[in-house]
Each structure stands twice: as C-alpha cells, then as structure tokens.
C-alpha cells in the first residue's frame, strides 16, 4: 500500500513540476520580456495562454500536500518543522502570484499594470526556487526525524541552492516550449519565433545546469549520487537526458506540439529518478518510507480516494485541455501594454 501511495505522491510532484513549473516559467519570461512596449506582445501571449489553465495547474500542489500529510504523516511533521523558512516564503510567493495574475487584467494605468506584472513575475521565479531548495534539503538528508534541523543551513547548502536554480531553469524551458506551441497553434508567427529562441536558449542552459549538477551532486551528496548512477535511478537519468536532447531537436525542426510532451518526459524522469535513488528512505538515513507511512486503513482509503480522483479528474482535465487545444477558450490576442480602457467582451 505504501508503495502505491508513494507512486501517487511522485505522480503529483511530477505533474506539479511539469504543469506548475511551466506556469512559473511563463512568469520568468514575463519578467525578462523587456520594457513595457517591447515586451507587450510576449506578455499578452503569456496571459492568454495561461489564463484558463493556471488554477488547474496549481491544484497539483494541493494534491501533493494532502497526499504527503495523509500518507506519510511522520515525514511531513519533521519537514515542516525544519524547512519552514523556504516553505513560508514559497507560500507568500503563491499568494502574490495568484492574486497578481487574477487581478492583472483589471489594471487601469501603466503604473498599476507594472506593479501587478512585476509582482506576478517575481513571485513566479521565487516559488520554484524555494520549492527546489526544499527538495534539495530532503534529498541531501538535511531533515532529521525529530524535526530540529537548522532552519537556515538545512536548505542553503550548495545542492539545495543548485536544485532551486534548476527549478527555475526547467520551468522556463518548459514554459517556452509550451508557449511556442501555443503561438504556433494560434498562428502568431513572430511569437513562435520569439519563444523558439527562448526555448532553445533555456534548453541549452538547463542542459548545462544538469550536466554541471552531476559534479555538484557527486562532490556534495554521495548517497544521492550513487542512487542516481546505479540501477533504476540511472535508467531514469538516461531517459531524462535523452528526452532533453530529443526536445532540442524537435524545437530545431519546429515540431513544438510534440516537443512539449517530450520536454515533460525529461523533467518527469528526473523526479522519478530522485524518488528511486532515495529508496527505501523518505528522509535519507533517518526514516524509511514504511516507517513514515500512515496506518493501513488510511493508506487504503487514500488509494481509493486517488482512484476516485482519477475517475473524476481525468475526464474533466481532458475536457479542459481539449477545449484549450482546440482554441475554444481563447480570448482575442492582445498585447499587454497597460491602459486597458478598451476591455474586450470576450475577456474574463
């Protein structure tokens, strides 16, 4: 049972990293889009593409949290007690980001739109960073089972910081791929080109980060390193690397729709690899998955819950994404300059 629940947890993390990550990445491109005039078209595209899906993307985080505390309560407690600083900061980031995104369409003046936009963009970069450091801290065994780990040094080591940066990088990369595909679907050629450039750039930077990471992890976290370089862990790392290269090629030949699935595989595989590498421990060297797990009755109920969720959510999500991909929820494309006095009928 614990294995099944673990699988659900990892699935949730993968989904959040892929969908939520792309969502945050969009914020990264918003932040770096340039001045109000120059960035207007990019920002307009980002808002239009992310509008209908960001809430659904975000809910994966809730899924991860509830499965975590219900399925593995004895690991949840210590993680929360040790890593409260990055978790709190990520939480504050989430408020800012969600609120700014929801309210941004209502801004009236350039100044208001700038404040909203900057808040949205900055938070989008900080959230994946802090979540990355949390993952890094857990993976490198910085969370003692009695929860009294150091509130700062536990997540400010080189590996947690590295994973934080990697979080930003992968998000930016997936977002650029997604946005390029979306621009292509909508036939907005200049934006296809703009996001293609960004996707290629981000793919290369993230790829280099990943390669560099191998050395960092080897030097700083030998346990994790040996897990990732043997058995199933290695397989996952190789799949991830291969998928990364294939995405690069797909981008090169303008096959964006396919590229977005393959890029998701690249990110998903490395997360599964992390889970595999840590086995059988939840908190490395401190607490195994089985010891962290809840009672059997709870795990059974949770598995049933997840199955129900799949029955309800898979058709619903399919419906949503199908409508999105068919362009039936599209609002008219409009650059975000500010001064939205001409609010369109079709825009929520």
């Amino acid at each position, binding site marked *: 049972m614990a294995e099944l629940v673990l699988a659900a947890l990892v699935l949730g993390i993968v989904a959040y990293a892929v969908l939520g990550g792309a969502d945050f990445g969009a914020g990264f491109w918003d932040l770096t889009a340039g001045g109000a005039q120059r960035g207007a078209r990019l920002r307009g595209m980002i808002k239009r593409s992310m509008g209908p899906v960001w809430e659904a993307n975000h809910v994966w985080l809730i899924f991860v949290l509830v499965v975590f*505390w219900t399925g593995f309560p004895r690991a949840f407690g210590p993680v929360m007690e040790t890593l409260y600083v990055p978790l709190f900061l990520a*939480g504050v980031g989430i408020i800012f980001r969600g609120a700014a995104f929801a309210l941004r369409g209502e801004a009236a003046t350039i100044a208001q739109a700038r404040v909203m936009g900057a808040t949205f963009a900055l938070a989008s970069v900080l959230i994946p960073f802090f979540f990355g450091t949390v993952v890094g801290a857990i993976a490198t065994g910085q969370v003692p089972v009695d929860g009294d780990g150091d509130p700062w040094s536990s997540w400010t080591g080189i590996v947690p910081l590295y994973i934080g940066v990697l979080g930003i990088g992968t998000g930016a990369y997936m977002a650029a791929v997604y946005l390029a595909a979306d621009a292509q679907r909508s036939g907005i050629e200049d934006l296809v080109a703009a996001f293609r450039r960004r996707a290629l750039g981000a793919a290369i930077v993230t790829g280099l980060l990943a390669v560099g990471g191998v050395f960092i992890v080897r030097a700083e976290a030998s346990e994790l390193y040996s897990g990732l370089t043997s058995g199933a862990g290695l397989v996952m790392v190789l799949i991830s690397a291969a998928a990364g290269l294939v995405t690069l090629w797909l981008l090169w030949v303008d096959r964006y729709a396919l590229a977005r699935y393959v890029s998701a595989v690249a990110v998903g595989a490395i997360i599964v690899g992390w889970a595999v590498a840590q086995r059988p421990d939840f908190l490395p060297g401190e607490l195994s998955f089985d010891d962290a797990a809840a009672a059997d*009755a709870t795990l059974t109920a949770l598995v049933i819950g997840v199955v129900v969720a799949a029955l309800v959510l898979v058709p619903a999500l399919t*419906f949503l994404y199908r409508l999105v991909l068919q362009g039936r929820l599209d609002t008219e494309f409009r650059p975000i300059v500010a001064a939205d006095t001409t609010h369109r009928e079709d825009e929520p």
Partner: protein
Amino acid sequence: MPLVDLLGNVLSLLAQASQFTPVDQDYLLEARQMQAMSLGVHIILVCFGIAFPAIVLFMEGLHLRTGDPAYKAIAKRWSKVMLILFAIGVVTGTILSFELGLLWPQFMESFGEVFGIAFALEGISFFTEAIFIAIYVYGWDRLPPRLHLLTGIPIVIAGITGALFVISVNGWMNNPVGFELSGGEVTEVRPLEALFNRQFWHELFHMYLAGVMVAGFLTAGVYAYAWLRGRRDRYHRVAMIVPLAFASLAAIVQPLVGDWAGRTVGENQPVKLAAMEGLDETTEGASLNLGGLYWNGEVHGGVEIPKGLSLLAYHDPNATVEGLDTVAAADRPPVGWVRNSFQVMVGIGTALALLGLAFVLHWWRRGRLPRSRWFYRAVVVAGPAAVVALLAGWIVTEVGRQPWIVYEVMRVEDAVTGAEGIPVGYGALALVYLGVASAALFLLRRLARRPVEWETGAKALEPTAPPREQEAGS
C-alpha cells in the same frame, strides 16, 4: 456542589495527563492568532465559492428560459467576479494548507492519518472546481448555451463537497472519533468514522447557509446601494432581487440550524456550551441571559430568561446544564471571547432572519419590493453583518474548543511548532493579506465601473434601456 467539583477535578486531572508533551514555544498565542487570521480571510472568500456559483447559474438559467439579455449580462459579469474571488480563495486556501503543517506539525504528524482523507477528498473537489470554473468563465459565447450552463453544474457541486470535507475535519477536531490512542501513538484508524463525526452535520448545514447569506446579502447590498443612489433600472432591480431571495431564505432557516448546533454542542462539548452562555456553575433549570456582555468573569446587562437555557439546550426547562466548574480552570476556554461572539452571532442572525422574513412576506403578499428607503439601507448593511456573524460563529467554535486542538485529546501547546520567528511570519502574512485585500477591492471596483456587456443587437428588445454608465453596480 462539592461532589460535582470533586468529580470535575478528577476528570480534568485525567484529561490534563494527555499523552503528548508540550512544545517549547514562546509565541503560542501569536501562532493561534496567525492561524485564525488566515482562516478568517479564507472563509469570507469561500462563501463566494460555495454559494455564488448557484446564484450565477440560476441567473443564466433564467436567461436561457426567457431569452432576456439582462439576466445574461448579470450572470456574465458575476462570473468574472467569481473567477477573481475563486483565485484569491485558492491562494489563501493554499496558505492554510501550509500553515496547518508549519504551525501545528505535531497535530498533523499525529493525526494526519485520521482526518487526512477528508482533505484528500476536498482536494479532488477543488480540483474539479478549478477545472470547470475555467471552462465556464472562458466559455461564454464559445460553447453552445446549454452546454455552457451544464459546465457550471460541477462548480456548484464541487463547492458543496469541498466545503463538506473541510468541515468534516473541523468537526473531527471538536469530536475526535475513529481511532484509538496508546502512548501518544494513533492506532486502529477508522477513516470513515472520523469523516462522519458527530459535529459534522450541523456544522455543514450551518456553514452552507452562512455562505449563502454572506454571498447573497453582500451582492444584493451592492445593488441596493446603487438603488439608493438613484440607479433604479431593471438591471439593478433583478441583480438585487435574486441574491436577496437566496440569502433571505437561508437567513430564515439559519436560526433553526443554529438551535440544532447548540444542542449538539451541549451533548458533545458541554464546556463549550457553558462558555457560550457564561455559565459558571452546573445548574438545574439554568436561565438564559440575552444581550449582556461578559467581562471580568461576569455577565453585565442583558435580559434574564428563567430556565431559558435548559429549555433551549435540552428542550426541558428543568434539565441540568453543566457549567465551567466541571473542569479545572486550565481546561476552560476564554469565556469572554466565546460568549460575546455567540451573542453577536445570535443577535445578527435574528435580525437578518427578520429582514429576510420581511422581504419574503412582502414579495409574496404584494408581489413587489418594499418602497421604504430603510429597506434598502437594511440590505446594504446586511452583507457586512452576515460577515461579522460568520466570523463570530467561527470564534465560538474554535476558541470554544480551547485549550484543545483535538478536543480532550491534544492540547494546543502540544501541537505547536518549536520553530522561531512566528511573530515575523505573522506580521509578514498580515501585510500580505492587507496588500492583496486592498488590490482586490480596488480592482473589483474598477470592474464595477465598466459598462455592462449587453448582447449586441439585443438592446432594442429591452424595454427600459440600460443606462450608459454603470458606476456602483458590479
């Protein structure tokens, strides 16, 4: 009553020897306030999540039946408000999920497996809600009208089930069942029993009605205000009547459910009931004090109704009502907060029920709205009053549970985190909420100023032409 005293002391000694150890935390009070602040913010937004979709859908249904463009214009505009409030509800809810872990790690670690299922099911509900709210709001005029209406139905259902499951957790904290405890370890978890605990049903209905009242009265109030300022067209009339009708019906039923809640609390948490009434000593045929304020350990002012409390709580004028003296002082909740909040809730509840009744009767007998300006003023005030009642009610439930986080099982000081910096987090979060709230209010006002989106070509059909400039109506 020495025997009762003795019994009470023995009981409380037993209770105090809880199976957990207190955590060293200088800022327990701040942690509690921080939790309360976040919940207080979230719960107001949530009212729109659980009740507003039904109102919006009803409007859209009216449009589909009659083809009248006014209904559609209203529904469309409200659905945008709904999306914004939902988004803010989502982020504040996420903060709560973090906070439960960050502030009360021992609570989650020890009992997460007992009540966690409810949160998992809640997660599914909100997931569904998030998916369909996007389809609904972005799907206007793009999906066929009937299909569009249909995509709204999951939002309504998911709002209800989502609230249901969170409330189940709160009910469980007040009536912890479905597990055994040995040496601080939870064993024999029975998740279903925990889910449907004995505090669950009344909290669910009471909260759902409260949600309808808050969303309905607040929305109606906006248009009543516009009416007072002279915008008396059909658009404003309809936009006021529909939510007002929902809220009024809920307000009429609410005191009955509140009575049920009170009696259930009397059974499961007699100490909370005693705190709600400020009853110090266990009394036979206890009297009820209405309207008085409690401070320094005494009720000041108010009207005394002999045997009223026994009658209300047990439907028997001579029933014995347990007082605060049944437990040791350390096991009593802060009576002032609980009692005064309870009075506020009941006072507002009674007033709103009367307002609702006045509206419904008038409508039914005369077939039109009352003409008095006082009626519109009352509707403007009703929304904020419902919010106050909502928060007061939660203070009764939550503060009345003190000093327990899990009633008679785990104390708050056993549950709190040992982390430093709670005041910093508290201050930071308060600023964040303040910022978000002012941005939201500001921008909602802007949304309200936009011209109403009338269906193109439909204007000719409209008998009372809509005014060009809509200022206050949202």
